[in-house]
């Protein structure tokens, strides 16, 4: 019964949710809305379990003096301070200006988040360097396409091509070409075609996985095995 009841619930609820997509009548939409609200409550309980795990894992590392344990001490202290301030000091006003919770959010969380996000620029540079190394015909194609798209997305791209064309004295018909048009074609046609093919395949995968879960064929999420 430990597995049969969850499987039955999954099948029934999955069926209701699929039906609510096609049947807008309140007999389908009201239960579907109610189930989605129930999911929010379940998630709220999940956060309690998650918070307990954060304490357990990090306190364990602190007491056993694992490597870099002082960082875990900072994490636990930060979690406790934020929790206590939110629960006992700010309560329902934790988003109001001037509250300690909002100060923590504005002056600690937001700058740290922005710092992490800013690192992305450096990661993109290093990844692009590797991506555009021409080692094969496919890599060469990728590098050329990327170069056209990058140049075509900035006004300097068209200006540079115009200068080269003027200097080289190419025929008049070719002078009308613009690199921005070429990059738009790359984005609209080959890029879009490949992207849509991946999306259609992924959508099939989504439906297949959903069907397997609803039918109880895919049951690894229950803890594996039969």
């Amino acid at each position, binding site marked *: 019964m430990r597995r049969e009841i969850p499987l039955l619930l999954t099948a029934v609820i999955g069926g209701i949710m699929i039906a609510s997509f096609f049947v*807008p009548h309140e007999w389908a939409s009201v239960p579907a809305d109610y189930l989605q609200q129930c999911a929010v409550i379940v998630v709220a309980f999940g956060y309690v379990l998650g918070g307990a*795990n954060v304490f357990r894992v990090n306190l364990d590392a602190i007491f056993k003096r694992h490597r870099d344990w002082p960082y875990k001490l900072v994490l636990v202290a930060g979690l406790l301070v934020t929790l206590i301030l939110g629960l006992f000091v700010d309560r329902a006003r934790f988003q109001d200006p001037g509250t300690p919770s909002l100060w923590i959010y504005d002056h600690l969380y937001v700058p740290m988040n922005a710092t992490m996000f800013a690192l992305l620029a450096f990661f993109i540079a290093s990844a692009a360097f590797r991506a555009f190394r021409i080692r094969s015909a496919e890599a060469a194609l990728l590098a050329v396409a990327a170069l056209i798209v990058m140049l075509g997305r900035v006004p300097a791209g068209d200006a540079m091509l115009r200068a080269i064309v003027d200097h080289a004295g190419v025929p008049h018909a070719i002078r009308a070409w613009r690199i921005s048009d070429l990059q738009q074609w790359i984005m609209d046609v080959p890029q879009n075609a490949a992207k849509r093919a991946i999306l259609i395949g992924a959508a099939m995968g989504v439906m297949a996985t959903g069907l397997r879960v609803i039918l109880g064929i895919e049951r*690894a999420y229950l803890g594996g095995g039969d």
Partner: protein
Amino acid sequence: MGACVVAVLAAAVLSGVPPALAAAPAVADSVPAPQPASGLLFSDVPNDAGRAIDLHWALSPDDSVRNGRVVGYRLERAPSPAGPWAPVDSVGAGTSTTTDGSVERNTPYFYRVSACGPGGVTPSGACAGPAIARSSWFNTTRASVLAFTVLFFLLVLYYMFLAQTGRKPFVRRLAGIDAIEEAIGRATEMGRPVLYVPGIQDIDDIQTVAGLVILESVARMTARYGTPIRVPVAYPIPFTIAQEVVRSAYLQGGVPDAYDPNSVSFVSPEQFAYVAAVTGIMLRDRPAAHVFMGSFYGESLMLAETGFETGAIQIAGTANVPQLPFFVVACDYTLIGEELFAASAYLSGDARLIGGLKGADVLKVAIVAVVIVGCVLETLGHHGLTVWMQTQ
């Protein structure tokens, strides 16, 4: 004149006309009230849950840019023709339709429209009603989706049945999946852990489900090899599922004592807090294999690039198309789109799951055929198929 402008604005605000409508030419003392709008018609919005009514009326004869007598229309509704009237919506001059999306289903409403201008507000002579919003039993615009869904389910079930009777379909090798065991073997030889990241989305994203399903196979391998596994999870529900999946995998692997309760940890749903934690694990614990399976966004490159710097074998899989190039660049193997969803069938070898893959492939062929037929029909000027495929 200034006093007139203030008076018009005040009157407009008090009468419920939005400021945009009230900003009419300041000639209230010389402009007469507009003639009323007429012919108010209503209709129940089709294919919905009985929550909206469409309204349409004929513009006031004074509604033209030249004379400026009409700046907009105000819609009101009441439970009976006698009132009380409550404002529903305000629209600008020249607009003759709106939708009341705040109705209760199966409840009669009466509507009236008033033309508003600098010279005053003129209600229409008659109200329209009773308008009743009723819920539909079937959203006809989704008939095409239903047809393909039913076809898909039938195909999958048919090929699952065939596979169960012994006709197991051929599945091509997926290098990325084959590499998982190789990567875990390498981690075992090096005495380092395996890092498994099941995406950064909650359980309502089917990619997270796929990532957790693959986790079961990966955890079974780590249990078999006696290799530690680290699974940082971003949301609490996937966290509890991941805990159960890994614990069961060790139990079924015959090594329940080897299961470390701290191997699966809840981190944070905040994207970059999660990145900081996972990259910290990469740099401190130096896992020899990183497996990223699930839904990823802007953090994908940060995770994969940091992992690349540590020299670990990296295998990624996602259906989020914008993140695929990042994984392709920074990882050794990448499962693209549907391969992520096929991985669990591939890893488990379950005939029913593999049969499901065949059903999905057949439907893809059908979709390609429909796309080609649609292109031909559109070229010939027949739009029926295109219209049928459009959904709301």
